[in-house]
């Protein structure tokens, strides 16, 4: 082949050869199925297994009722909280990896990626075993409680009341914790890649010129890592918004998220058109988020020039 592909306009044929496979893949396995689901959202059930595409907007009308909008908003709030916690927890981790010695860095990165080697379902069940009523977390807390009680008797005080297990599972706390646990690597990796590229002499300069550590972090590191933070936020927020397994398995009676409602339309309710309409509302919301982000990014670029 002739020369490196610096500009695809000069090398149309090799470019077409390379790009056709992914485009074919994208069209056949993404756009076509999504197009069918999109069509369903304008249809209605005419039998247990038959849908007629009638062009009706009833599904969207129903999907924008307050009941479903409130579930959308709740899911968005949960996803935002998860993203925020991931950012607060993930940022120091990414910093630590960036400033770790060359010898340690690959191992720390490996530790971040390690969870991806295990299926999400298995990780979730493992977390549930840990957090259950008679799980290891409660056993550990119970042992500490008993120890404290024993220490009190040593110094002549009344022993504490018997330990009652803490309710860790089947509530909204469990859902947020489970989602943070699952999404943390998605936040750390883009943050790390942004921080790694950061010119460290700028930090030294800031410190030399009298700014404190916290001020240096807020005025130098965070703005320079802005693109990484934005990428991390999007890559965490969007999957968290569509989370379905975690609220299903770890949530309590009021932990349903929009993806659970969608899943039920496709399975139990057997109402595919309505499920399709809900799915597309979710997709549009995600598009809006991405568009907002890229708009912000392009404006920042224009401002810099």
């Amino acid at each position, binding site marked *: 082949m002739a020369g490196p592909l610096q500009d695809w306009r000069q090398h149309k044929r090799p470019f077409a050869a390379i790009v056709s496979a992914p485009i074919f893949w994208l069209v056949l396995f993404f756009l076509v199925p999504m197009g*069918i689901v999109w069509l369903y959202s304008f249809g209605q059930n005419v039998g*247990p297994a038959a849908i007629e595409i009638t062009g009706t907007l009833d599904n969207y009308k129903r999907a924008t009722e307050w009941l479903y909008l409130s579930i959308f908003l709740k899911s968005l709030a949960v996803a935002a909280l998860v993203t925020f916690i991931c950012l607060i927890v993930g940022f120091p981790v990414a910093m630590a990896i960036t400033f770790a010695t060359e010898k340690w860095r690959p191992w720390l990165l490996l530790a971040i990626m390690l969870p991806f080697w295990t299926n999400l379902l298995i990780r979730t069940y493992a977390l549930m075993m840990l957090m259950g009523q008679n799980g290891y977390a409660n056993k550990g807390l119970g042992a500490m409680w008993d120890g404290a009680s024993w220490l009190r008797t040593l110094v002549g005080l009344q022993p504490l009341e018997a330990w009652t297990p803490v309710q860790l599972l089947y509530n909204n706390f469990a859902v947020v914790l489970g989602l943070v646990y699952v999404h943390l690597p998605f936040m750390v990796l883009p943050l790390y890649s942004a921080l790694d590229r950061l010119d460290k002499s700028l930090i030294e300069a800031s410190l030399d010129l009298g700014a404190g550590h916290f001020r240096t972090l807020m005025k130098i590191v965070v703005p320079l890592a802005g693109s990484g933070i934005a990428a991390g936020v999007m890559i965490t927020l969007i999957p968290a918004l569509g989370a379905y397994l975690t609220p299903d398995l770890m949530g309590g009676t009021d932990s*349903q998220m929009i993806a659970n409602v969608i899943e039920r339309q496709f399975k139990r*309710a057997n109402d595919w058109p309505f*499920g399709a309409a809900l799915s597309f509302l979710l997709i549009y919301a995600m598009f809006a988020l991405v568009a907002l982000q890229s708009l912000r990014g392009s404006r920042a670029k224009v401002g810099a020039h």
Partner: protein
Amino acid sequence: MSNTTFGGNKLGRRSLLQGLGVAAIGISFGGLAGCSKPESGAKDGKIGGTGEEPKLNFYNWDTYIGETTLADFKGASGVDVNMTLFASNDELFAKLRAGNPGYDLIVPSNDFVERMAAADMIVPLDHSLIPNFKNAAPEYQDVPYDPKRKYSMPYTWLALGIGYRKSKVSSPPDSWKVLFDSDEYKGRIAVLSEAGDMFRLYGKYLGKSVNSLTPEDIKAIEAMMIKQKPNIKAFHEDNGQDLLLKGEVDLVLEYNGDIAQIMSEDPDIGFVIPKEGSQLNSDNLCIPKGAPHPKNAHAFINYLLDAEVGKKITETILYPTPNAAAKALMPDSYKNNQAVFPAAEVLAKCEYAKFNPELQPKYEEAFTRVRAA
């Protein structure tokens, strides 16, 4: 209502999806690993006693067959049974509505037999190939959800009730009140997440038939559910027996067969069908449309209905069996187990739920409101 149809003639999504072979929204319609596709005629001259290639694709529930049943059948007939598992009727239905991916035999519950027959997804059975049908108890030979057993053969039956930890309750919970309308066991209760079952059982508690609920009833029950919600710990996905066994909850709404399985592990577990009556379910053997080996499937159904074979299956799964001849061979510890076989006067108040396409979305929406409240 049938003005604009998609693609000229009425094209169900089934043919549409089948033609394109796509997967949508996380539900896989994909081909089954290890399942043979329908083949025209047997290859390699390998022909079993039925004139078909000696293979059978069996789509079953988990823990729902005897330990040696499949191997025994291969020994008896030479047919290789390839069993794959599904976890809910919804999963079964979702997989098959996009076209049969190669299954020969499925095990839907009663209301799904009705639904799949209505959707033309299962084929009528040839009773002349199933002489062991005579082993079924008379009440299972003709059932309201499948008159004259046109499409299905009885495999097991089950009833919903309350599984509980004996040491944690003041008295056996013999009324739905403890689950539906009381704060006595606050935070120690798990109920089903299946909207239809929940509404129907609330109806039972209110003294109505499971098949006579009206939109007004649904509204009233929804208000009751919202009121009771703070006392409920979790809506479980038919894994209530695990929650009870692990001590996550002390009372659980579950099927008798599931609780019977853990009663043999933990003597502190009890089961009761509430005095108001309950909802019955029955799992049935059906042949889906487009099955590649229907003759083998008939032979296997007949084999499963055999008394000795049925006994071996029942010994493993411990579910109530509708096979009278197999039940007769079981030990008294099974026949007299109150959890497996509730007393006749309790059973008399239990009903099968009919497939109701109008009410199901209403149940779902009301339950979504309950969860969002």
